[in-house]
């Protein structure tokens, strides 16, 4: 893949079709782990890491296992198993090597398994017929898009903790959802932006 292709792919994945704000993948961790900036950054990085690894592994599994055996309909089952074991691996790695990050992410880390973004991007790579290089690039840049979204959202929510004037029924989740909606509106500005023609 040439540089132009990579730049247009990554701008597309980060801004134009951001995983959170335009594809609606990975809303659970986006809402659940965005109350504090530290854990939002940690979650974003963990998701990016898992996304890159799972893009590679799922592509390989699809190309060298599912396609030759002609069992592509087993895609969902195969991919979710691969992703579940990958997440287990990342968790053990963090627990052993970066305990501080492990503590701040706490219980949310295993939830990456049930993060739609990871499975969704793996399936999208196959659906769009990407090669290995493009798959890695798409996984990485989607992860960066997720990181950007969750960091922006965490900074908004930290402010809302201090001062928010919503009526009582809106306290908690709904007000966060409204803030998320406004961010999505901002990201809508990127839609229709075409990179290099």
């Amino acid at each position, binding site marked *: 893949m040439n540089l132009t292709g990579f730049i247009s792919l990554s701008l597309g994945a980060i801004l134009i079709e951001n995983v959170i704000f335009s594809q609606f993948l990975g809303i*659970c961790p986006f809402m659940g782990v965005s109350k504090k900036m530290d854990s939002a950054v940690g979650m974003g990085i963990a998701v990016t890491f898992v996304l890159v690894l799972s893009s590679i592994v799922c592509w390989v599994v699809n190309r060298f296992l599912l396609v030759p055996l002609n069992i592509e309909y087993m895609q969902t089952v195969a991919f979710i*198993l691969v992703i579940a074991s990958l997440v287990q691996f990342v968790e053990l790695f963090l627990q052993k090597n970066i305990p501080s990050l492990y503590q701040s992410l706490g*219980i949310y880390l295993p939830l990456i398994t049930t993060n739609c973004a990871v*499975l969704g991007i793996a399936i999208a790579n196959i659906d769009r017929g990407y090669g290995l290089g493009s798959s890695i690039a798409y996984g990485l840049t989607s992860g960066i898009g997720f990181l950007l979204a969750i960091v922006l959202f965490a900074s908004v929510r930290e402010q809302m903790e201090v001062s928010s004037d919503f009526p009582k029924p809106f*306290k908690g989740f709904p007000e966060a*959802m409204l803030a998320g909606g406004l961010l999505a509106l901002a990201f809508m500005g990127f839609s229709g932006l075409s990179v290099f023609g």
Partner: protein
Amino acid sequence: MKIKDLFLDGVIRKNPVLVQLLGMCSALAITTSLFNGLGMGLAVTIILICSNVVISLLRNFIPKKIRIAAFIVVIAAFVTIVDLLIQAFIPDLSESLGVFIPLIVVNCIILGRAEALASKNKVGVAALDGLFQGIGYTIAAVAMCIVRELLGSGTFGGGILNGGAGIRIFPEQFGATYMIMPFGGFIVMAFLIALTQWLVARNEKKTGKKADPVPDEYEEVLK
């Protein structure tokens, strides 16, 4: 456990989307026409019932340590079956829901029910719980669809009624297109959850007793 309790829990008191706040991705993403909402609700309900039944039957055979992985395999098998059935018999639905059908695998509602209820209860209870939680999800999804479709494109029942075009409530050019965009999903969901919280608070005030706290399914799953 009474059937009535299970029903009220699934549909209102512990509604998976509006109270437990699970399964947000699909409830936000595909709820742009009544056809999508009903189709997704039906798919989720069928998968919930099947996976609840199988997991309840296997509850004494699955080792505790690897139960989450085992649940995911069971769920993924049923999702694959439903996905293939939809592709074969309702190709329109398959096209408009797209990747969100295989993504039912990672819908927290199904894993949450497997862990919190099906792995601890008899088959009958698990099946009924699957049905009622599925209905609860469908109600939330359909409510989202009706509001977003009406405000966004000015129709009701798109994809089903009136030969697929939907019944036109007001002319198309007055529709606020951003209601069927991601922005509208977030906003409508925020208002629906706020409405639910308001109703719960009002009910607490009227009856003078507190509603049961909803157990955090995230923590339940990860214990």
